[in-house]
């Protein structure tokens, strides 16, 4: 009884492996009570996520500084100079580095489309996709539900870009596939748009993650999509 209850929760939380998941779904198909219990839990979970208070940190906490030593001021003057130099350096490097990245993500998008290997985990449920990704990546990418805005989540796959494993969230709009590449990176940046080989590309950085959006969708809709995605982060 208790083991079964635990399994139900593990199933809903996306913590069962594929085989156990299928087995549980088969059990549910034959057991209306189990199905109902599952539905109730799903609703409860949705209610908690939708209605429980989320307490953002007060501004004061954002001002908690790293403890400063006595020589801090002296060091910080040097640090400032170094930072400016470093900043200029990285700015120039980034300008040069962004373009190969655009090539990489567009290539991945095309490869996936051609090879038909767009999706490793097919689900429109963000609470299925996210745990699947976090179980396989050294970070946990945010997965946003944009179905209200006409972008259905179709699933996700793993890929390799920018010299590291990345998450690719796959959304669909009509017949168009929208790939969202996500990986952790410091800094924030606004949405900037470009095009490559006939594909539209948008990129931005939010909340410790970098996002590259690639699709054959028209410019306007892709920009809308990027704005929605950025706004939810």
């Amino acid at each position, binding site marked *: 009884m208790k083991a079964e209850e635990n399994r139900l929760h*593990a199933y809903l939380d996306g913590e069962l492996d594929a085989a156990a998941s299928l087995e549980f779904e088969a059990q549910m198909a034959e057991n209306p009570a189990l199905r109902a219990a599952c539905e*109730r839990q799903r609703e409860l979970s949705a209610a*908690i996520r939708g209605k429980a208070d*989320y*307490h*953002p940190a007060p501004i004061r*906490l*954002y001002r908690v500084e790293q403890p400063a030593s006595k020589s801090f001021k002296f060091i910080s003057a040097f640090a400032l100079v170094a930072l400016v130099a470093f900043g200029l350096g990285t700015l120039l490097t980034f300008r040069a580095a962004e373009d190969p990245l655009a090539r990489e993500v567009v290539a991945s998008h095309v490869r996936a489309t051609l090879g038909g290997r767009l999706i490793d985990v097919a689900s429109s449920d963000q609470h299925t996709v996210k745990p699947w990704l*976090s179980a396989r990546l050294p970070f946990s990418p945010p997965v946003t539900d944009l179905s209200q805005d006409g972008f259905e989540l179709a699933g996700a796959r793993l890929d390799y870009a920018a010299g590291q494993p990345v998450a690719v969230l796959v959304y669909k709009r009509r017949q168009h596939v929208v790939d969202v590449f996500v990986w952790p990176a410091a800094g924030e940046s606004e949405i900037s748009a470009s095009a490559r080989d006939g594909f539209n590309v948008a990129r931005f950085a939010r909340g410790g993650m970098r996002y590259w959006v690639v699709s054959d969708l028209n410019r306007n809709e892709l920009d809308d999509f990027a704005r929605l995605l950025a706004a939810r982060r």
Partner: protein
Amino acid sequence: MPHLDAAFNLARWLTRNDHDAEDVVQEALLRAYRFFDGLRGAPRPWLLAIVRNACFSWLQANRPAELHAVDGMEQESDAPGPEALAARDVDRRRLNEAIAALPVQFREVLVLRELEDLTYKDIARIAEIPIGTVMSRLSRARRQLAEALRIIAAPPRLRVHK
């Protein structure tokens, strides 16, 4: 500091008031800085583990009664599931009160799972318990919550007898 909100949210749910949560997080941040050169690159579970420990130390010092063990002392409740619960109709305030009323060990796994969307593995690391315990605490937390909400949600019938 990308995970500061997550840190504060956890502390706020564990201490149940703004002022103490702020103190605890501030202390945890200073501790975190000692290990990490700035928090920008610090992974969320790592920071949350530090915050969680700070919260439990604080509870130990200030409200030890809240820390009594919850595992193993389960009354086998074979009561039927909360049939009356239509979770989507649950009032926001009641839901928050019911979560706040859960034992702290249940509250923490629930908050980490539902509000931070962490995996069992990360929750196990943060709460320093085995994954199996995460699973059973989570299922008991949700059951208690469902039962509590049902009780609160159906007061008219109870009131008749008073």
